[in-house]
């Protein structure tokens, strides 16, 4: 698929389509959709912005590439004046007081936000079932989960309800739903896009990530959102990625894959066969392919969840109903905190907060939390060594196809293990793109940190190769 952004831009400029009609059409599609992708529609705001774009075009003014392009926002981003619920009871009536940096940059470029999108509550989940708005249903089979936590965003893009959506990826929450719904989803290098205004889950791996139907649209949106931001001191300045620079992949000579991912008993037979067939096609193009050693899946998942739970226990401690949120009064302040949190957090969120406080407790932090940090460093070192040998690491997105709705909630441990192929790259803070090719749930392309451009280059190469 070619760039939808460019296509719609042309239609607007040539007056084939009026922006207000386009926005109204997308709002109607969202309103009537049976996939549970919508937490709230931004109809008034969107139509007002669209009318301004139409006026500009009517007056013969030039419009920017993103002006008038409708997009969706995972409901964990601040957008001033809009409800920002994190799909939770606690914040179901919370209004953003300010706007996230990444979203503001899109607004400044003229893109039009039309929907706050359903997701797992506070990003806690891999299926978008852990939400007060009802489980998000897969774009192609409504009996299956959409994946998560950015499930609503992925389905909206897959169904053409939005041109692109902005998800959040902490351990795979953009890449896995992108794979489950056959679209592109990028987790950029950690820090490339400011996290300011993204509700914090695990701050050391939280990333803002675009979902779209083409590599070109991912590139356009990534460029707009990237950059250093004084409000997120882990953000860094990055060069724009040019369209021409990602068309030629001659610099990619060697590709690696983790052999234990493929030799695992947990991988679906067809996913394995399709992945190995892809490897053969890459070899046939003259690229050297190396099988690499990596950490066991269980170690990766356990390390990620140990650290993510510790961070989320800390981040979510602010949600006590004092300054905002659905406060439930009790006999004193302490009881008010406890009742507010007990009644308003989902079971999965409570499980993660409790897990986080367990590992941060005296007596447990050494043997679990600090050891988890040490393993994370080993994982990072492993990646550094790998990228001395290979340019790109290729892997499946998930070991198997999407589960049926309801199955993940019954077995949280199995849900955690289903993140086996995504969490390692999060811990390494590496740029990783899901492409809708290669296996039933796509492929992940990963490069060394800050080399997001190489990821897009290889995606273009694979688009024409497999």
């Amino acid at each position: 698929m070619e760039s939808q952004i460019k296509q719609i831009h042309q239609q607007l400029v040539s007056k084939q389509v009026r922006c207000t009609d386009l926005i109204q059409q997308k709002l109607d599609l969202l309103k009537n959709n049976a996939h549970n992708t919508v937490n709230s529609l931004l109809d008034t705001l969107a139509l007002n912005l669209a009318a301004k774009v139409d006026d500009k075009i009517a007056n013969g003014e030039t419009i920017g590439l993103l002006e008038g392009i409708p997009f969706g926002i995972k409901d964990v981003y601040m957008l001033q004046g809009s409800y920002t619920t994190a799909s939770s009871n606690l914040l179901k009536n919370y209004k953003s007081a300010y706007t996230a940096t990444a979203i503001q940059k899109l607004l400044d470029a003229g893109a039009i936000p039309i929907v706050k999108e359903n997701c797992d509550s506070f990003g806690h989940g891999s299926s978008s079932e852990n939400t007060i708005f009802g489980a998000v249903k897969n774009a192609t089979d409504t009996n299956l989960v959409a994946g998560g936590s950015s499930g609503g965003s992925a389905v909206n893009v897959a169904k053409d309800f939005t041109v692109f959506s902005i998800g959040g990826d902490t351990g795979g929450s953009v890449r896995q739903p992108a794979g489950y719904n056959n679209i592109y989803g990028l987790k950029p290098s950690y820090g490339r896009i400011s996290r300011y205004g993204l509700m914090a889950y695990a701050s050391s791996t939280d990333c803002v990530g675009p979902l779209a139907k083409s590599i070109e649209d991912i590139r356009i949106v990534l460029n707009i959102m990237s950059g250093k931001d004084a409000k997120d001191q882990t953000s860094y300045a990055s060069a724009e990625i040019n369209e021409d620079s990602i068309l030629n992949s001659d610099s990619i000579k060697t590709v690696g894959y983790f052999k234990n991912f493929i030799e695992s008993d947990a991988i679906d037979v067809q996913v394995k066969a399709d992945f190995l067939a892809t490897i053969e096609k890459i070899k046939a193009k003259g690229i050297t392919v190396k099988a690499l050693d990596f950490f066991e899946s269980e170690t990766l998942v356990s390390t990620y969840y140990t650290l993510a739970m510790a961070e989320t226990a800390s981040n979510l401690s602010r949600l006590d109903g004092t300054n905002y949120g659905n406060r439930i009064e009790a006999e004193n302040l302490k009881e008010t905190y406890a009742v507010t949190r007990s009644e308003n957090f989902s079971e999965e969120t409570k499980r993660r907060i409790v897990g986080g406080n367990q590992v941060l407790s005296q007596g447990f932090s050494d043997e679990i939390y600090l050891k988890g940090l040490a393993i994370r460093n080993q994982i990072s070192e492993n990646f550094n060594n790998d990228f001395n040998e290979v340019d790109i690491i290729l892997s499946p997105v998930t070991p198997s196809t999407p589960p049926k709705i309801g199955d993940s909630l019954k077995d949280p441990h199995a849900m955690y293990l289903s993140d086996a192929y995504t969490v390692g790259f999060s811990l390494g803070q590496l740029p990783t793109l899901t492409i809708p090719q290669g296996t039933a749930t796509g492929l992940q392309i990963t490069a060394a940190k800050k080399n997001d451009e190489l990821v897009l280059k290889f995606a273009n190469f694979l688009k024409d190769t497999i």
Partner: protein
Amino acid sequence: MSKIMTVDILSSIKGAEPSEAVNKLFEVIKNANSTNNTFNNVFNNNNCICLNDLRDDVVIESSETEKQIIKENFPKEKDGYLVVAKVIEE
């Protein structure tokens, strides 16, 4: 501070208990091999910030809209004042 605090108190979640699903993950970490020299290079090439890059320590006035929304989000208001529940007296 010798008082032992259980996870339900630490988490401010009534009746909270460690879960089996999560404990299984922690067991993997306990049993994993790790080298002990890694704290010298925690995120060795990653998130360090140069002192010169620290943002200015200035007070930025919120916009009227922002102030209004913050008040709207506040759960209680009495006689024009924002109020919190009774203070902890122990």
